[in-house]
């Protein structure tokens, strides 16, 4: 059974001046533990798609089915990571990481201990009682990931999660995040405008058309067994990487016309 099914989903935004069709008959099937990368021109409805899956907005037509039940509103099975860390500057790192659990009334001694352990595992020990402004961009992004993982979702939505970071940090954090997600065996849907990032992390890359967005093509990324669950940096060095890059680049550019 598919983990997530997106059936003929369309979405229209209404403003006083205009009506915008963000998505038209979008279809996607995601199996469990799959890492999906979605790329597309800016404004093609990538982020809208994630908001739909997260249950923050409702599709105009079509349905989204998670584990056999249609999505209506937010669910604790889904974790959503936004473009920036949006850590609350008045909360300590530990309290930031606990935010989701607190909102869901699941903050217990056990869950607190688990989050503390995660902070330790991901190189943030000693920072539990620091405030966000005392951390580097990469560290903050890791705290945001822990905040998302703390609620134990099994589907993760990443909306250009590294776009606010500088290139160096971006590669390093991408490496960390990939390792962490593989280790937790999560199903992931990551939206990005960075083709290389998508290829280096995903099992399958979906290319979207310009607005109204729909699936233009799919690329199964297979670097061979020695690269499976491998590091994004290592994947970037593989000769196949360039082939995938060239193919997807061409797809996206033919969109432009």
């Amino acid at each position, binding site marked *: 059974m598919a983990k997530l099914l997106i059936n003929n989903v369309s979405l229209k935004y209404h403003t006083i001046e205009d009506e915008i069709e963000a998505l038209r008959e979008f279809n996607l099937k995601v199996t469990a533990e799959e890492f999906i990368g979605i790329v597309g021109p800016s404004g093609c409805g990538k982020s809208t798609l994630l908001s739909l899956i997260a249950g923050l907005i409702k599709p105009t037509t079509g349905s989204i089915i998670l584990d056999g039940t249609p999505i209506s*509103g937010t669910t604790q099975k889904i974790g959503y990571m936004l473009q920036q860390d949006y850590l609350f500057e008045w909360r300590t790192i530990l309290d930031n990481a606990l935010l989701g659990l607190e909102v869901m009334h699941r903050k217990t001694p056990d869950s607190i201990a688990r989050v503390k352990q995660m902070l330790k595992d991901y190189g943030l020990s000693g920072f539990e009682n620091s405030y966000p402004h005392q951390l580097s961009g990469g560290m903050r992004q890791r705290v945001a990931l822990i905040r998302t993982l703390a609620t134990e979702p099994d589907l993760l939505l990443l909306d250009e999660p590294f776009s606010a970071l500088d290139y160096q940090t971006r590669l390093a954090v991408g490496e960390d995040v990939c390792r962490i997600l593989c280790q937790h065996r999560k199903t992931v849907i990551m939206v990005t405008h960075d083709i290389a990032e998508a290829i280096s992390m995903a099992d399958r890359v979906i290319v979207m058309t310009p607005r109204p967005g729909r699936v233009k093509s799919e690329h199964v990324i297979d670097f061979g067994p020695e690269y499976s669950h491998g590091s994004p940096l290592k994947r970037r060095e593989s000769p196949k990487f360039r082939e995938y890059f060239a193919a997807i680049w061409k797809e996206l550019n033919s969109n432009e016309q």
Partner: protein
Amino acid sequence: MNSKQGRQALYSIEHVRYLRRIRVRRRIIVLLQIMLLISAFAIWEAAADYGWINQFITSKPSRAWTAVVNLFNRGELWRHLGYTIGETCLGFSVGTMAGIIVAAMLWWSDFISKILDPYIVILNSVPKVALGPIFIVWLGTGLKAVVAMAIATSVIVTIMVVHNGFKNIDPNKIKLMHTFGATRLQIFTKVVIPASIPTMIAALKVSVGLSLVGTIVGEFLGSKAGLGYLIVYGGQIFNMSLVMAAVIMLSIVSALLYYIVVLLERKVVKYNH
């Protein structure tokens, strides 16, 4: 202290000189501030003594001081100060709390906020002094009318500033809360309130001054105690020393109240080093 000295020993001579220069500069500024005040009073005193200005209408610092001492000896000083400070604090607290509650309601319902918007703008631009006689008719002269006046002068600004702060919170922080399935109340208590604390303090700084304005105006219009009463009473019997003494005390009170808000700010906004 010890660690500071220890650290200083590690600095280069240039850095130590730089620190000293800054320290000296800061001291000179404070010194000049104090001297400016003292010389203003000294010139005033001398000008009155040598007859350059008419003591009868300008009074002079030493006579203002005598007026304060007289008030103290008659046991009235603390009563007047107490009334003004008490009325201001009462008006300020009630006005601030009411303002924050109304701002929260406006944040809660954008619809209500849109409906009330023009009325709030108009209420803000109406000179609150004009309401004084109404309060006196409704509440009688004295404490109640004065406090009502203090509330009226400060509450609208508090509503506007705080509501603006509530509205200007990063929508992505709210989106983040939505992704966790947060209720509107959770969003309010966990994001909106803590994120608006700096704005609320800024509102307090404005409204503490306005509450004092309201209190003094209220005391002008109808009261039997307070610095505002002393000023009007002194003016009526042409006792300018009393008027000047009350105005000087009023300046000190207003500085003190403002300083209390600044202290509060330092205590509350600790993450914003």
